[in-house]
């Protein structure tokens, strides 16, 4: 199964081979969960929403247009589920700095399972924490455009389809998000020295 492309797996899943859909879940569990957890800032709720996303995707699989990328379509399902959740329940978000267990749990989740040298882990960890903190204060839609564009490599058109927004709005969001993120990091000690190359 793992050697098949997304479209073949979708076709097989529609023929009733649930294992094909299992492979799609295995393939996209981390990108989908990563996007959601950074949007809702709560590991347990993010996992619940991610489950719902895959269940909804399975139920609506026949509506997937195979000329598009499966990942974009799945991100659209994830976007809708996350936005619905944020609107309905007013999710209690957990700031990274908070020392209680929940904050530590979220920080652990966002740090990810690393297989690097301890020094690399430490440096990467510092960078990741600084970035996550800078993103934490951004508006959810700004956080989302940054992740879709720079983490998951979506084109402007794909982002517009995922978020159901006009192309111009996506570009505006992205521009503002980048500026806000830069301001957040400039405020910390990550700012480059003026005389630095």
């Amino acid at each position: 199964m793992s050697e098949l492309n997304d479209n073949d797996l979708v076709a097989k899943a529609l023929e009733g081979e649930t294992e094909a859909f299992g492979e799609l879940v295995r393939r996209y569990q981390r990108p989908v969960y990563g996007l959601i957890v950074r949007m809702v800032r709560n590991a347990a709720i993010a996992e619940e929403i991610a489950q719902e996303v895959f269940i909804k995707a399975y139920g609506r699989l026949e509506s997937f247009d195979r000329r598009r990328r499966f990942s974009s379509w799945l991100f659209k399902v994830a976007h809708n589920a996350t936005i619905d959740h944020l609107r309905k329940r007013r999710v209690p978000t957990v700031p990274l700095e908070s020392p209680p267990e929940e904050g530590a749990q979220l920080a652990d989740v966002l740090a990810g399972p690393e297989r690097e040298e301890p020094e690399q882990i430490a440096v990467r960890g510092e960078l990741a924490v600084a970035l996550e903190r800078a993103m934490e204060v951004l508006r959810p839609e700004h956080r989302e455009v940054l992740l879709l564009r720079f983490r998951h490599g979506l084109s402007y058109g794909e982002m517009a389809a995922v978020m159901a927004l006009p192309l111009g709005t996506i570009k505006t969001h992205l521009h503002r998000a980048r500026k806000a993120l830069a301001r957040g990091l400039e405020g910390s000690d990550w700012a480059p020295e003026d005389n630095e190359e």
Partner: protein
Amino acid sequence: MKSDQNRSLRRWLRAERAGHLERAEIALREVFRRLADPSPSLGFVDVVMARLLPIPPREQIAVGWRALLAASLVLVAFSVAVLPLVIWPIAEVVRLSSVIDFAASLVVATSQALAGWLSFWQSLGEANRVFFTIVSKPPVAVMMLAVAGLGAVAIRILSGLRALDRSVHDV
């Protein structure tokens, strides 16, 4: 600054500050690549699959129903086509007069059976009438009521004795 490992971040911030959009995009992509890909808890796939199994995809259901409907239509069409071919040879062998004779004999046999049943019910009705005539006479009615009363009293006494017997054993 933290380390050379984080050049990409500094490169992005410099590009952003200088307004080099294209360079900033490339550098920011590099920065985000350094972010970890958080994973859900172990067994996430199994949980999703377990929740999925009772829900077959809609298309699968539709295909199943469509196949069943198509098979039924084919069967009906086949039957309609074949039935006259099966009936025709029988119609040639069996004459109309013999069919009428057979139907008439069926009617006669049925009416005879009905007549037999009617006479049986008639005799039962006669026996019932005789019994009612006897029972409706006053001395017989009084005697029957007395017997019923005695029976009721006997049952009541027996029931009391049984209760007494049970309470003695329980002690």
